[in-house]
């Protein structure tokens, strides 16, 4: 739960930036990364809180982003054992699909470009996730 508290100000800043001018869904990226590094209760709480802040900052219906983030977190939680290093494409496919789906539901149009950027960012962040997982001393991250 300590990790969750550390992430609170980060989510607030990202939500405000996304609500004003940032079209890239960095909150979704954060939710995905946390769901991979720390699946379970923390990722569920972060998904709910991030979605709530995003809805408040961008004027979308309260609960919509929270629900979508929770679904994404849950899917990653279910598939956590299958996201192994030899097959990073499954993870990247999920990220791309989540970004597209989020855009379709919230903004009513398919937009593949932010999804593609998120895929690149997640791919680039893999060593970082691995580091955090090793640092935690828990189960090694399978990406």
């Amino acid at each position, binding site marked *: 739960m300590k990790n969750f508290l550390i992430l609170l100000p980060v989510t607030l800043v990202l939500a*405000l*930036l*996304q*609500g*004003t*001018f*940032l*079209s890239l869904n960095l909150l979704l990226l954060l939710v995905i990364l946390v769901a991979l590094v720390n*699946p*379970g*209760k923390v990722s*569920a*709480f972060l*998904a*709910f809180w991030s*979605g*709530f802040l995003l809805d*408040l*900052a*961008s*004027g*979308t*219906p*309260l*609960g*919509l982003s*929270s*629900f979508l983030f*929770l*679904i994404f*977190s*849950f899917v990653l*939680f279910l598939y956590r054992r299958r996201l192994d290093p030899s097959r990073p494409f499954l993870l990247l496919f999920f990220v791309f699909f989540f970004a597209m789906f989020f855009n379709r539901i*919230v*903004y*009513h*149009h398919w*937009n593949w*470009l932010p999804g593609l950027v998120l895929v690149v960012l997640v791919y680039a962040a893999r060593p970082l996730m691995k580091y955090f997982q090793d640092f935690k001393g828990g189960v090694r991250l399978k990406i």
Partner: protein
Amino acid sequence: MKKEFFWFLLLGFLSLLMFYFDRRGWLKTVRGWLERPVLGIEEKIYGFKLSAVKELDFFTSGQKQEEQILKLEGKLRQLAVDGNQLASCLEENERMRKLLGAPLPPSWKFLPAKVVGLSGQMRLDKGEKDGVKQGMMVVSENILVGRVDSVEAHSCLVTLPITPNIKIPVVVKSDRGVQAKGILTSLPGQKLILDKVLQQEDIQSGDLVVTSADWLPDLVIGQIEEVLPETAAIYRKARLSPLVDYQSLSVVFVVIKS
């Protein structure tokens, strides 16, 4: 495992409940109360972003000076060649200027609103408590900025013409009168497209595209940049250039009464 399922289930249910309550309008007071400080911060962030973009433009303009000089020299030569057509061009320009500067109907009432966000949709700092309702038009001078899509207590979301897959019924006008009717759509990358114009209609680059009577009429949206050559199609298409830079708007007007 069961514990994690429980948390996902509980928070998911809570999200759905919140969504339902918000759609029914039962959270308006709470949301309005929470939104106030958020809107204040967002207004400052957006203002900072606009000024930062201006500063960046100032610095990058120095590098482009040489290119601009070359372009201007080319334009001067072109002007010299076109000198003999100046008289007719001036007359045409005068008509266009009148059309562009056409005063809006005096019965329209405007509510000034600050732009507090622009990601996907434009967010304004005026809402239900200020008299804003869903479907109202938002303008800047007599140029259409968008239509109010959803309203909260102290803010509203505006759908812009550059929103992908939007469909706005429009009319093409020029100094030759009303030329055609069509549908304005948008493609990803903020490109405006005029579609569903019959092949026999006479549209040319430079013609103005305004809203038809289905929306508030005669609000200018853009100017035809290029008529796309598609001879085999039933309808003609044209690429438009918007007359306002949506990214740089800081204050707009909501048409609250017409």
